[in-house]
């Protein structure tokens, strides 16, 4: 029997961690993921887990600890956000190239410049090429479910890659929502034991990890990693299938919402997908054929599957909650558009960069986006491809989309009412 509860996203992930009872957690506090190691420390302090919690002096050392512990034969986890993950950067590559399935709870937050603690995806999107499997969550439930699936995916012998399970800072991490928890013993059974073939503390033979790899070998190791990422696609679906058997909750590379006959669609990642779905519901009530695809797995990127899902759509808006400063669009847009290249008939596509540094996006904003898509579908004219939504403009009438002004006004009000 599933356990009904209401937890914040951070608490949900910490609960999954408690149920898994990993060997080692190395973590350093950073908003908004700080609560995760805090909750976990209290589990340690009260004997609910017998994990060794290492309160390191930096995120760099947090990831170093996890890599070392995992190489030593232990299951290691961490949690971080934003600049914390940026400080781990070089070790992200180390973990994946060493083929060590470290599991990270990433609570997405904007990167500094200026410092900002709120949500966007610039941290994980920047790390998209670091060789980690990236799974994103819309809700607290998904953050919990994804974390429980992470280890069976990453530790699979044909994969052996680290996994980051992402959720949106504050929007889900600090928001209480209804959830269904799985019983502790069922989680443990699902996740299983970590049994690497070789590890530093193995009795039978020593292990040497982390060599200097000359050019004669380096390329081969990268090819191995690339193949492991391909294997991960298969394993992600297998694990999702097992998870569905356990919970009834279905997961794939992405969720298709009202896509069957959709003429316009939004492709999006994370919590805003829920807001987008609410907009789709309203549009459907008005008889408009709107749909939405929420990307769950960004690494490996489900290219063929996504192309197939979008093939019949007339106009697509890809929503990026991260800038990549390519002067041509965000990272999700680049990959989605590339995925569609081989289709004989391609939908018209535009890109919206939205929600940076916690800028809110509402149902009404999605309404405007779908209206814009309908126009593009009808006229066949895409207009400006690379767009931003939600920022103030000197001349609001010049915007590609009539952005609901009330939100700007209300944002102004929000700043005042939050002592900002």
């Amino acid at each position, binding site marked *: 029997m599933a356990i009904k509860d209401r937890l914040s996203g951070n608490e949900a992930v910490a609960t999954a961690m408690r149920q898994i009872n990993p060997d080692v957690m190395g973590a350093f506090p950073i908003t908004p993921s700080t609560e995760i190691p805090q909750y976990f420390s209290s589990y340690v302090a009260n004997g609910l887990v017998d994990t060794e919690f290492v309160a390191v002096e930096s995120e760099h050392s947090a990831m170093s600890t996890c890599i070392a512990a995992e190489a030593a034969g232990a299951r290691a986890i961490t949690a971080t956000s934003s600049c914390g993950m940026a400080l781990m950067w070089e070790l992200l590559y180390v973990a994946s190239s*060493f083929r060590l399935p470290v599991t990270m709870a990433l609570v997405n937050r904007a990167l500094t410049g200026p410092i900002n603690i709120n949500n966007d995806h610039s941290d994980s999107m920047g790390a998209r090429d670091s060789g980690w499997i990236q799974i994103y969550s819309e809700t607290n439930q998904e953050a919990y479910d994804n974390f429980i699936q992470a280890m069976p995916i990453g530790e699979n012998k044909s994969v*052996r890659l680290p996994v980051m399970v992402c959720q949106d800072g504050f929007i889900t991490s600090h928001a209480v929502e209804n959830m269904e928890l799985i019983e502790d013993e069922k989680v443990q059974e699902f996740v299983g034991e970590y049994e690497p073939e070789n590890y530093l503390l193995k009795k039978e*033979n020593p292990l040497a990890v982390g060599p200097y790899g000359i050019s004669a070998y380096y390329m*081969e190791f990268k090819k191995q990693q690339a193949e492991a990422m391909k294997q991960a696609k298969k394993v992600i679906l297998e694990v999702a299938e097992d998870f569905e058997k356990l919970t009834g909750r279905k997961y794939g590379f992405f969720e298709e919402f009202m896509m069957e006959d959709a003429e316009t669609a939004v492709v999006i990642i994370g919590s805003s997908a829920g807001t987008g779905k609410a907009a789709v519901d309203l549009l459907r009530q008005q008889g408009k054929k709107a749909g939405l695809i929420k990307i769950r797995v960004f690494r490996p990127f489900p290219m063929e599957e996504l192309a197939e899902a979008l093939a019949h759509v007339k106009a697509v808006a890809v929503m990026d909650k991260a800038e990549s400063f390519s002067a041509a669009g965000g990272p999700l847009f680049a990959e989605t558009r590339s995925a569609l290249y081989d289709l004989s008939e391609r939908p018209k596509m535009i890109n919206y960069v939205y929600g940076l540094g916690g800028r809110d996006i509402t149902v009404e904003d999605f309404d405007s986006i779908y209206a814009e898509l309908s126009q593009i579908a009808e006229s066949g004219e895409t207009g400006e491809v690379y767009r931003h939504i939600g920022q103030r403009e000197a001349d609001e009438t010049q915007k590609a989309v009539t952005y609901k002004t009330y939100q700007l006004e209300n944002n102004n009000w929000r700043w005042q009412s939050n002592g900002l």
Partner: protein
Amino acid sequence: MKKAAEINEHTPWQELTPGAEIYEPATSKLVNTGDWRTMTPVFLKDKCKQCLLCVPFCPDSSIPVQDGKRGEFDFMHCKGCGICYKVCPFGAIQFKREEK
């Protein structure tokens, strides 16, 4: 999985150890660093008093000790630095130009 001795610059990616791990001890013994030498130490057994002072100073672990006595240099690994010849108090090690 392949052993280090079987791995070389022709090994395809499918056969390399995953994550560049090596599961055996001290595989560097396979490497011939002896051919780096331009100068070579010569062990004069008769002059040696078996004080063993040369042993810990060898950067290449190339002075084997057995039953309290040092043996001939491990010329597969000795790089010919000459430290041993300098620390020997009894002139039992000569340092000569390598003849190839």
